[in-house]
């Protein structure tokens, strides 16, 4: 029994964390947040992540990747969440996963090395406005190798060279397609979001040429579901990182900040809230580890594990970042303070790849019906 990260995985986490601390700290994050019309994709950060192999984690070695698992990838996601780091990391990793799982050897050879090296930015467009995250929310139609419809919100579509789009064919079957930037009929409509640590947009397709992903291990609905599951786990990992860092910062602050002549952290109302949040965040951390491992090992309980992880991580991040603002007192409500980076990132990401409610509904379907 070994339920923990290996020394290598811990070292990987430390590397990413130290890189962010040294080269992309909260001041750098603020720079991106305060430039809402910029592309939100700092090149130095991107190159640094690429240099560490953070983009190559899941890519097979034959395509210049590290050939590691989702458990390793979630290490990166968690650190990026902890550092509220901007950029299309999750989007690019998921695009590469789509190719790895559903692409032909040729498609993989064309795209994966570039994605692994950070030369190509990818993203995924799996759901349309107000849609669910289970394939029923797809709002793009495929007619042969042409796509029409709008997917939204999509992470970083403006900087992406490759967009993996989920679309349904006339018979209603879903599948994944590759759309390249600049394709005819493709319009990226930037969508302003309050989460300044990301950039999102709508991907509008009008009879746009697209290449079906095919010839890989998975296809059709299975491929879409597998991609959704990976998106859920990586988002959960990001949220867990956000939650842990928000909690740590709040505890550190309340240990020192005095009101009524004593540290506010000595008040039991605050202590008990922090204790409950610590338990919740710790459980969410466990859940993300287990889910990532379950995906990697194709555990028969993988569907339950993914839903548990996403539901728990979303709830923990939501609660922790709300408490952060409350328990920093007024200062945590100001623009100048960093609390809102965590709060807004948690709020925006919590519902991505299925809200806590959606994942609980899925758990009910898996264990009640």
């Amino acid at each position, binding site marked *: 029994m070994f339920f923990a990260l290996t020394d290598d995985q811990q070292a990987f986490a430390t590397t990413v964390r130290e890189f962010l601390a040294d080269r992309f700290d909260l001041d750098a994050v603020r720079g991106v947040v305060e430039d809402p019309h910029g592309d939100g994709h700092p090149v130095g950060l991107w190159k640094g992540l690429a240099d560490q192999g953070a983009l190559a984690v899941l890519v097979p070695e034959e395509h210049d990747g590290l050939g590691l698992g989702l458990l390793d990838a979630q290490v990166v996601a968690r650190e990026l969440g902890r550092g509220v780091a901007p950029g299309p990391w999750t989007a690019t990793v998921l695009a590469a996963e789509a190719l790895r799982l559903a692409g032909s050897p040729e498609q993989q050879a064309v795209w994966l090395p570039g994605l692994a090296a950070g030369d190509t930015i990818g993203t995924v467009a799996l*759901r349309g*406005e*107000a849609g669910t995250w289970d394939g029923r929310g797809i709002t793009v139609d495929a007619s042969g190798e042409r796509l029409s419809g709008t997917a*939204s*919100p999509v992470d970083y579509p403006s900087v992406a060279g490759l967009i993996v789009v989920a679309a349904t064919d006339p018979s209603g079957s879903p599948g994944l397609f590759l759309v390249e930037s600049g394709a005819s009929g493709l319009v990226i*409509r930037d*969508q*302003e*979001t*309050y*989460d300044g640590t990301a950039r*999102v947009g709508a991907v509008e397709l009008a009879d746009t040429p697209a290449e079906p992903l095919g010839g890989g291990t998975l296809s059709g609905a299975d491929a879409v579901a597998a991609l959704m599951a990976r998106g859920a786990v990586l988002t959960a990992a990001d949220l867990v990182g956000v939650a842990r860092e928000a909690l740590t910062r709040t505890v550190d602050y309340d240990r020192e900040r*005095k*009101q*009524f*002549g004593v540290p506010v952290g000595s*008040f039991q*109302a*605050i202590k008990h809230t922090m204790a409950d949040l610590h338990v919740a965040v710790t459980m969410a951390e466990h859940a993300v580890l287990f889910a990532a491992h379950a995906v990697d090992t194709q555990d028969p309980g993988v569907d339950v594990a993914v839903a548990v992880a996403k539901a728990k991580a979303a709830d923990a991040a939501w609660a922790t970042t*709300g408490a952060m*603002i*409350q328990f920093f*007192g*007024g*200062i945590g*409500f*100001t*623009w*100048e*303070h960093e*609390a*809102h980076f965590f*709060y*807004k990132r948690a*709020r*925006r990401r919590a*519902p*991505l790849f299925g*809200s806590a*409610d959606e994942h609980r*509904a899925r758990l009910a379907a898996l264990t009640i019906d």
Partner: protein
Amino acid sequence: MDLSYTAEEEQFREELRTWLAANIPDEWTQPGFWRALDDDESFRLRRDWEASKTAAGFSGIEWPTEYGGRGGTPGMKAIYDEEMVRARAPQTVNVLGLTFLAPTIMAIGTPEQKAEIIGPMLRNEVIWCQGFSEPGAGSDLAAVATRGVRDGDDYVVNGQKIWTTNAVHGDKIFTIVRTEPGSERHKGLSMMLIDMDQPGVEARPLKQMSGASEFGEVFFTDARVPAKDCLGEIGAGWRTAMLLLSFERGASGVGQYTEFRRQYDEIVAEARRFGRSDDPVARQRLANCLVELECLRYHAMHILTQVEQGRDLGSESSMTKLQWSETFQDLWEAFDDVLGPEASLARPRPDVDLTPFQHQAMWSRSVTIWGGSSQVQRNIVAERVLGLPR
């Protein structure tokens, strides 16, 4: 139980409603109108409009006529609050002066203060700010560090205030200053009425997490205030402050309910627009907000009854604060929760602007902090209402 207002009160409602209908330009009630204006312009419009409302006799509703008020009943004040919300009238600009300072001056002000302060405030000729919180004195108001040193007939004031509403538009500020050197906690404080239009006073907007600036900071650097411009006695500032804060216990819950209920309906409309209103789980979430909102309404009627009967509300105001602030915050949590990924987009559709919703949702995080945090209010309820030991 008799939940009706008197005929006289309903008559007042009719008059007010008629005046509001005739005096609020249609465009003012359109979504986005106020946000599109720059801050100074918006303030000026509201300031002037309210002055005309005062001239028409619709301000200081429950104040004695000797102070320029209408001499109305608590019920009329509740009706006023409700109708202002219903008519989507602009936000009151002199709100802290009108709510807190004016009744305190009526109670303990000098004849000169009564004569010189209340009228100009009511007519918006002087805009008042409140200077209570400091960076190191939030929930713990007694930790005030701003100090005033006697110099001839004046005090010379140095220090910083924060969370000051309308800071950059203010003409004067009522503020707690430590006037007795070396004093601690509740002792040696004075409530000074300081002219903000002097070199020693600087006001800066404070940008909030939403990007808006409802609050500001006020810096005092050798600011001067005549000793006579102290409200209450020198050194009795804590008593003055407590008296002043006691006037929060009004009947504004009726207006608050009206406003929050409209927000509920607006959130429901967005949920419907984005196909979320049929989801049974989302419906539970929203309906539970409605439960708390309706309770807030009943509570407002209960409080109004207490006020009409001349009862001292005492620590009950802490219960009111908890109910409205937690309910309001939960309502806006429901917005984020129910709308899902669309909630974080300014325009999930090109024709839909959710920015005002997002601002409210973020604003809702502050209401459980200012005016006595929820933690402070729970202490008060536990100790003063339930009698649990300190």
